[in-house]
């Protein structure tokens, strides 16, 4: 029976860099396909409501602003969102999806209502020339890279 087989392993790590990260001061980078927070490219959306129907958390609400104009309002309730990206999968616009995910992950806040984001936009006509890929909106949370 050997005593203390774990000893070499422990001593080996005594002067090694810790495996943990000094979190709020140092951050790990998230991988390329990370599912962060959903956001809308308003000029691509055709207001088909596929995302609203398939969202498992009922976090997306689309309303028509007025009957005459093709104006719509989309609200994403980030406090309800479970970051599954089903809305991105369901979105039919081609070749660029109107719904997209960024890399934000530090979403904690004191008031859940501040987590709401909304867009008011005119419905895009489906068969238009594809627009260039719009950039993601800059992050409003300091230190976190947007996509």
């Amino acid at each position, binding site marked *: 029976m050997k005593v203390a087989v*774990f*000893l070499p392993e*422990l001593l080996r*790590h005594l*002067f090694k860099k*810790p*495996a*943990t990260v000094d979190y709020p001061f140092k951050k790990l980078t998230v991988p390329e396909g990370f599912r962060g927070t959903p956001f809308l490219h308003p000029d691509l959306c055709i207001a088909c409501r596929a995302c609203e129907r398939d969202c498992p958390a009922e976090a997306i609400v689309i309303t028509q602003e007025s009957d005459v104009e093709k104006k719509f309002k989309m609200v994403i309730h980030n406090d309800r969102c479970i970051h599954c990206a089903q809305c991105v999968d369901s979105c039919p616009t081609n070749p660029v999806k109107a719904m997209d995910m960024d890399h934000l992950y530090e979403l904690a806040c004191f008031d859940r209502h501040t987590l709401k984001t909304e867009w008011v936009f005119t419905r895009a006509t489906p068969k238009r020339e594809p627009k260039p890929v719009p950039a993601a909106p800059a992050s409003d949370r300091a230190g976190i890279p947007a996509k």
Partner: protein
Amino acid sequence: MAVLKTILYLLVYPGLLFLFVYGTFCEWFDRKVYARLQNRMGPTHTGRWGLLQPVADFFKLMAKEDIVPDAADKPLFTLLPIVGLAVVATAGLLMPLWNPFPEAAGLISFQGDIIVLLYLLSLPTLIAFLAGWSSTNIFSQIGGTRVLTMLFGYEVPLFMAVLSPAILANSWRIAEIGAFYRARPLLLLPNVIGFVVALICVQAKLERTPFDIPHAETEIVGGTFTEYSGKKLAFFRLMTDIELVVSSGLIAAIFLGGFGGSPILAFLQFVVKTLAVIFLLSLIRALTSRIRVDQVVAFAWKTMAPLAVLQLLIVIIIKGLLK
């Protein structure tokens, strides 16, 4: 003047204040070493390298609500933390440290002080048992009985292991034992078995893994101290820290040749040697998994006690040879 100096002695150095500062430092050291052995960071943010974390913990606990359970034996429940702290602080005074107040010397160094120190170090165990029992919580009571069961295991080997160097040095005075071994460093070698036994028994006395049975949180929540909170818990934690300092100081004084030379040198020796002992204790903590209380008693009587007896025999034989 002498009175003032005695008061300074009791309260500042090497009394309460010093013990508090050094005790929290040792806790930080223990936590940091433990964390590093596990490839973690340990305390990081409070003070430089997290040095003030144990102090911050202490003051945070002091500020917390202090709850005394209705069913508890209130006077006993309240008194125990204070008595516990007083006992270990008294034990701390017996450390053969450099003493700037010679007037108070008679208080702290005399023939037989090693026995008194060992006795004072046994008291916290009893206090932990009483604390568990007086809380009348089922978990505390199980913790309390476990404390006592363990006490019957490790106390005898500890005494035998600690007293054998004293027998060789032919003195019951810690300072003299240290001086004896400083004069003949080679004689420290026969005491190695005793050193190992004493280290393990101190680990058990301090209730650290693998002997953290009385407060094994996955089994019996907080164990003995389940019902304690706020100031009382802070006192108990400080008591454990000081107990750590005193017992590692005792081992350093007896098995590692004590602390001699000029005052500064002696103090440095004290720091280095106690930290070395604490490092070993942390290593044991990181290395082992908790065992059951019946296994502790079996281990103590089947392995530790024979080893301690062996140590005594070696010491007696060597003593005969030296004569």
